[in-house]
């Protein structure tokens, strides 16, 4: 079990030393250089390529460093503290609260010629404490994918979806009514459409539209009512939601034909296109006669680092170059993402119907995922509570306990 640790630490130490040397020897500022950090993956590769256009236009060097997405935020905060920050960082909008409280990003003015083309929800997502902090370029939200061989028409309500799914199970055509990611410890991101459809919310907003950490929706009666309905769909109820289905296996259940429905994000579109199941996209439906089911919308944006060495270029890149419609269109085409710009969306409406369907579903009922730092205290306890309720625990006591745990974490 015990692995040799000293070799690893020595390697890490050497790497650290070498990176220190690298940044020291690269500190030659005669040729102006813009340094951008982004997450690895298709999006990062696309960004790295398109960002070079900025360098060509302005006659400066552009260097894009790709960091694994789950480490990007903490690496950026640590680098800012150590004065090794990049000039620009690109990542999810829900980092803004934490990045601002650590003094690592600067507000920007959305005054460029194409700023009016940005979707209102995208701008709302990057607005924090009445200040705009980033230039949005993609929007993600979960949708319902259905197997059109088995279900030609999109279900209008959750009841209809479940009835269809149960008929298909009874007929032996599928084994699962619905592939809805829950996981052993829950997933509040995925459950949000059902949670909001039952009348719940996570954080309320003040008059100016800012999320208010003092207004925790989980301690409201709506949360208990909503989770009572989720519990009824759970393992001891209709057995539609189950902990054995998670983000890891939901899509394979769909693409192997075991479920006619799956709730997943647009990041699965490339995988679905590779598969053989014919699919169509519709919003995650709400309950009959109830409020709309709102999926969380997350927005990817580029931010100007407060402690970057070349802030002028960072500002120019984020506020001017990255906001331009032609750049955002190039990014969309390279990364196959859901664009934040309405102009880009119009441009691709004929060629990428799936992307448009996801964007329409988000625009119809989506809500911005809270970006306040307090949201970090919500995920874990709420997920556990959700998993417990789906397993059959009493919604009233479970949600009340989760709410008080979260309140204690926010207060403390």
């Amino acid at each position: 079990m015990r692995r040799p640790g000293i070799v690893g630490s020595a390697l890490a130490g050497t790497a650290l030393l070498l990176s220190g040397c690298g940044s020291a020897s690269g500190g030659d500022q005669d040729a102006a250089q813009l340094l951008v950090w982004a997450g690895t993956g298709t999006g990062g590769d696309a960004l790295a390529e398109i960002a070079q256009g900025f360098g060509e236009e302005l006659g400066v060097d552009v260097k894009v460093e790709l960091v694994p997405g789950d480490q990007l935020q903490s690496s950026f905060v640590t680098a800012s503290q150590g004065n090794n920050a990049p000039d620009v960082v690109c990542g999810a909008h829900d980092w803004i609260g934490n990045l601002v409280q650590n003094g690592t990003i600067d507000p920007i003015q959305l005054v460029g010629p194409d700023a009016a083309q940005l979707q209102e929800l995208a701008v709302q997502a990057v607005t924090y404490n009445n200040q705009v902090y980033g230039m949005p370029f993609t929007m993600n939200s979960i949708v319902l994918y259905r197997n059109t061989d088995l279900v030609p028409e999109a279900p209008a309500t959750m009841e209809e979806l479940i009835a269809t799914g149960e008929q298909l199970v009874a007929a032996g055509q599928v084994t699962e009514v619905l592939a809805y990611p829950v996981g052993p410890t829950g997933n509040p991101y995925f459950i949000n459409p059902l949670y909001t459809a039952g009348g719940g919310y996570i954080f309320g907003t003040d008059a100016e539209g800012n999320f208010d950490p003092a207004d925790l929706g989980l301690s409201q009666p709506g949360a208990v009512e909503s989770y009572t309905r989720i519990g009824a769909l759970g393992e001891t109820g209709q057995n539609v939601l189950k902990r054995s289905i998670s983000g890891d296996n939901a899509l394979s259940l769909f693409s192997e034909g075991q479920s006619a429905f799956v709730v997943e994000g647009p990041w699965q579109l490339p995988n679905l296109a590779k598969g053989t199941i014919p699919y169509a996209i519709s919003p995650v439906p709400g309950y009959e006669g109830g409020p709309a089911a709102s999926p969380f919308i997350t927005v990817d944006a580029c931010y100007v680092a407060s402690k970057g060495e070349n802030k002028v270029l960072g500002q120019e890149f984020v506020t001017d170059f990255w906001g331009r419609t032609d750049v955002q269109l190039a990014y969309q085409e390279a990364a196959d993402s859901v664009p934040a710009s309405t102009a880009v969306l119009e441009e691709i409406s004929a060629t990428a119907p799936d992307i448009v369907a996801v964007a329409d579903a988000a625009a119809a009922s989506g809500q911005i995922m809270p970006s306040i730092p307090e949201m970090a205290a919500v995920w874990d306890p709420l997920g556990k509570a959700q998993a417990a309720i789906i397993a059959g625990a009493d919604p009233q006591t479970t949600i009340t306990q989760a709410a008080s745990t979260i309140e204690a974490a926010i207060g403390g």
Partner: protein
Amino acid sequence: MARSTADVETTRSAGAPPPSPSGKEVGLTADGTGSPLGLLFKILALGLFAAVAVFACIPLIRTERWVWLAVVVVVTVIAFWVYLSPRPIPLKYLLPGTLLLLVFQVLPVVFTVSTAFTNFSDGHRGSQEEAIAAIEGASLQRVPDSPVFSLSVATQGSDLAFLLLDPDTGDTFVGTEDGLDELQGADESDGTITAADGFTVLTTAEVAARSEEVATFTVPTDDGVIKSQGVSIAYVGAPQQTYDPACDCITDAVTGEVWTADGDVGSFVDADGNALAQGWQVNVGLENFSRVLTDPTIRASFLRIIVWNFAFAIITVVITFALGLLVALALNNSRLRGRTIYRSLIILPYAMPVVAMYLVWREMFNTDFGLINRMLGTEINWFGNTASSMIAILLVQLWLGYNYMFLVITGALQSIPADLTEAASVDGAKKFYSFRTITFPLLLVALAPLLIASFAFNFNNFSAIYLLSEGAPFSPDNPAAGATDILITYTYRLAFGGAGADYGFAAAISVFIFLIVGVISVVGFRQTRALEEVN
């Protein structure tokens, strides 16, 4: 380093002239290094050391970390003195190991312990000055209905100037540190000023080269200040919240709210006790430690967690050792054919990335779609019940761990002289009796330190729990502590699961865990010594 030392010493014993008795002579050959190869090694090693030191100094100077710079210089001087002077012979052997020990063992412990006395966390990372800069910067609002200028950065002599064009009215201005003036006779093209008398308009590359100057350059006006955004746009902005050193407080110009600095918590706090998000790092004394001891959720779950933590680590060590021993004994029989193949196959899982293995096993334990339930024809919710969750975790630990034990036991078995057991069998001892009284105690002597190390490792085996069960099952009334949480996963959730990372608190808990594991290790090694004396 170590190599050059060895060379130095062998050369001397080979009959090189003894070191100068005065002890003042310092130089490459002062300690008697005579052979060209030895000298070459020494020159290369010291040269490499000096090169690394210089590389380390450059970023330290750039970020103005004088204390660390002094440390690097002192260490370098010591290293050169040790290897160039004839006197400190013991140090020549000790220095490399001591330096590595300090860097990789002692320094992290010192950092952790010192962090435990601070409020270092998200929102409390830097100094008060940095917090003030962040608050003022974040509150800089564009003045409503003010124009957004098209900007050309220019120089007048050596001073910066902003040449501004209001795209709505077509008016042109020049902004300097002293204020805004109208500009006459400027050449315009494409909505920007391209030239003006007495000014040199800078290219983008030239602006970027003076980035810091341009980014902080402001033109004072009646409404606020004109600031640049990038190279081609400027706007009128006014900081809504400003710091006043007289009262050590932040005042909001619009709402009139006042937040006063509170040095005890490292935040600006208003009259109602609400703090601004941007705070700074302060010393909080023993607060993190007392929080560990008084936190109600910690007190409620601590005993249960620590019992399972011990059970998890001990059982893991015992079962992996037992299975490893059985397999090693079986494969140690020289009459068995294809032993090498069996041994290689058994070691195979040890060669796989642990993280991936944990994830694969987690999927195999899935209630409805996992391989294990399908094979057994059961519907056990493995991570949904306390007992089955623990069993599942221990099974995975066994699979991942016994091959390592097998490896070390095989090695130890082969080092036990065969004549001991042969002598026993000549004396009429049965196979099992000679194993129990001779082989096993000798094995334990050799392996006890490894078992203690394995225990200490598993006591803090974060990934085993976090990647398999995440601590599940959780009781509905306590989402903070799961039934299979060990101390390290539980405290990870406490320190990093709340509103941002709380390094100070995490460090305090680490100190407690360090004490627990440290005490056990010391006691364990004492016992090992007793074992050796018996034999």
